[in-house]
C-alpha cells in the first residue's frame, strides 16, 4: 500500500511539473486538437448525407450526430502515445537509472499522459462546444447526471485499457529490437475496431458477435455509446463489466510481461 501511495504522490508532482512545462506550447495544442476533430466532422457530414439521400442505416440521425460530436473528446481522452517512447527508454538503457529510484519509470509516462490530456482538454472543449451548437437540433442528450457519470467512469476505464495495452506492446522491447511496426499495427487496428473511423453499430451483421466483444470496442466506442445510444440498463452493466474485466486481465498480463522483462533486462551502456 505504501508503494502505491508514494507512486501516486510522485505522479501528482510530476503531472503538475509537466503541465507547467507543456503549457509553453499552448498554440501547438490548439493546432493538434483542430486536427483531432477534422476526421469526426468529415465522417459526420458523410453519414448525414448518406441518411439524407435515403440510406437505410440501423441507427438514426441523432445517434450518428451525437456519436461523431463526442468522438473527438473520447478518442483524445482515452489515447496513449507512449509505446514508442517507453520502448526506446528500455532499448537505450534509460530504464537503468530509474531502477534505483524510489518510483517506477512508468510514473513519468502516466504524468505525461495526464498533463497533456489536461491541456488538450482546454483546447478541445470549446471546439466541441461549437460543433455541438451547430448540430444542437439533432443531438441526443441523456436526461439526468447518471449517464454522464457512467460516461466519465467509462472514459477513465477506456484510458486505462489503452495505456495498459501500450505498456504491454512496449514491454516487448525487452526482447525485440524494434517494436515500431507493432505500435503502428496497434494504432491502425484500433482505429477501426475501436469505432474511431466508423461507428461499430454500422458494422455488418456477420461481424456483430466479434465486434461487440473485442477489447478495442471498450476503448472508444462503448463510452460514446453510453451517451449516444439507447443501451438498456442490462447492456450498460454488462458493458461496464466487460470493460473492467479487460482492464484487469490486460493489467495482469502486462504486469507479468513487464516483470519478466525486468528480469531479462541487461542494461545497455552499463
Amino acid at each position: 500500500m505504501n508503494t502505491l501511495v508514494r507512486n501516486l504522490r510522485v505522479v501528482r508532482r510530476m503531472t503538475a511539473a509537466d503541465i507547467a512545462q507543456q503549457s509553453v506550447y499552448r498554440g501547438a495544442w490548439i493546432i493538434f486538437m483542430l486536427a483531432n476533430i477534422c476526421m469526426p466532422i468529415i465522417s459526420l457530414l458523410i453519414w448525414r448525407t448518406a441518411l439524407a439521400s435515403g440510406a437505410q442505416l440501423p441507427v438514426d440521425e441523432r445517434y450518428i450526430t451525437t456519436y461523431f460530436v463526442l468522438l473527438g473528446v473520447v478518442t483524445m481522452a482515452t489515447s496513449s502515445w507512449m509505446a514508442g517512447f517507453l520502448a526506446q527508454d528500455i532499448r537505450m538503457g534509460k530504464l537503468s537509472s530509474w531502477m534505483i529510484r524510489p518510483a517506477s519509470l512508468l510514473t513519468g509516462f502516466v504524468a505525461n499522459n495526464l498533463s497533456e490530456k489536461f491541456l488538450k482538454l482546454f483546447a478541445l472543449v470549446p471546439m466541441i462546444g461549437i460543433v455541438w451548437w451547430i448540430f444542437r437540433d439533432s443531438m441526443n442528450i441523456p436526461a439526468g447526471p447518471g449517464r454522464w457519470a457512467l460516461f466519465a467512469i467509462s472514459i477513465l476505464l477506456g484510458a486505462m485499457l489503452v495505456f495498459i495495452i501500450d505498456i504491454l506492446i512496449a514491454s516487448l522491447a525487452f526482447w525485440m529490437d524494434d517494436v515500431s511496426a507493432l505500435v503502428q499495427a496497434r494504432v491502425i487496428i484500433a482505429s477501426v475496431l475501436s469505432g474511431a473511423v466508423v461507428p461499430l453499430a454500422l458494422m455488418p451483421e456477420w461481424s456483430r458477435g466479434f465486434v461487440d466483444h473485442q477489447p478495442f470496442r471498450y476503448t472508444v466506442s462503448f463510452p460514446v455509446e453510453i451517451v449516444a445510444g439507447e443501451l438498456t440498463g442490462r447492456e450498460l452493466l454488462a458493458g461496464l463489466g466487460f470493460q473492467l474485466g479487460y482492464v484487469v486481465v490486460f493489467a495482469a498480463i502486462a504486469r507479468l510481461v513487464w516483470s519478466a522483462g525486468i528480469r531479462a533486462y541487461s542494461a545497455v551502456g552499463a
Partner: protein
Amino acid sequence: MSPLDRTWWHKQWRHLRLWRRFFAQAVVRETHFRAHFLTTLLVGLVQLGLGIVPTLLLFGFTSEVGGWSRAEVIALVGVFQIVTGLMATFVAPNLNRMTTYLTEGELDGVLLRPVSSQFYLTLRWINVAELTNVASGIAVLVIGLVQADLAPGVGQIVQAVVLVSSGLVLLTAVWSAMSFLAFWLQSVNPIGFVFLSLMEAGRYPLVFFPVAVRTFLTFAFPVAFATTFPVRALAGDLGWETVAVGVGFAVVAMLLVRLLWRRGLLTYSSASS
C-alpha cells in the same frame, strides 16, 4: 538574375537538373534501407484497405449517394491514394521539417547556397518508398473505372492528369503557406496533422458535403481539384472550363506562396544570432 544563369529559363533548367539529382540520390538511399521500403509498402496497403472500409460500409446501405455509385467512389479513393502518395513522396518529407529549418537555424545554410531557397525547402527530400502507394492507387483507380463501366478517352485522361497536377500544386501551396507560419509562430510541427486531417475530406466526392463545406473544399482547401474533379473528368461530365480554372488557381496560388515566403524571409533573424 544571378550570374550563374544567363536567362530565367536557364535558371529553371538548372533547378530541374538539381531536382533530378535529388531524386537519383533518394533512390540510392532507398536501396540501403530495404526494410523501410517494405514497411512503407505494407503500411500503405493496410491503410488503403482501411480507408475504403467506410465507403464499402456506406454503400452497403444504399446504392447511390448524390449521383455517385460505389464503383465511382472507389475510383475516387484510387485518385486520392495517388495524390496522397505523391504528396508523401515529394512534399511531406520537406514541409515536415519546416520547424527544424527555422528553429535550429538550418535555414542559414540553405540561404547561402546558389539555389532558390523556397525550391530547396519544398522539394529537397524525397521518400521514394511512398511511390508504392501511387502504384496501389492506380490499381484501385483502374478497378473502380472497370466496375463503373467507364472507358475514358484520351481527352478525358488529359483533363484528369492536368486537374490532378494543378490539385497537387494547390495543395502543396496550401501546406507550404501553413508551414511558413513558422516564421511568425516559431513551432508549427502539428500543422502537418491539420493538413493531413483536412486532406481526408478528399476521400469522398464533393457532393457528399453540405454546400458551405463544398465551397471551402474548392476554394480555401482545394482538395476537390485533386480528387473529385479528376474523377468527374474521367467519367466525361466535366468541361475544359473547370480544367482552365484549376490551372489558373494553381498559378495564382504559386505566386501567392512565393510572396508569403519572401515576406517570411524578411522576418527571419537566424536561430543562433
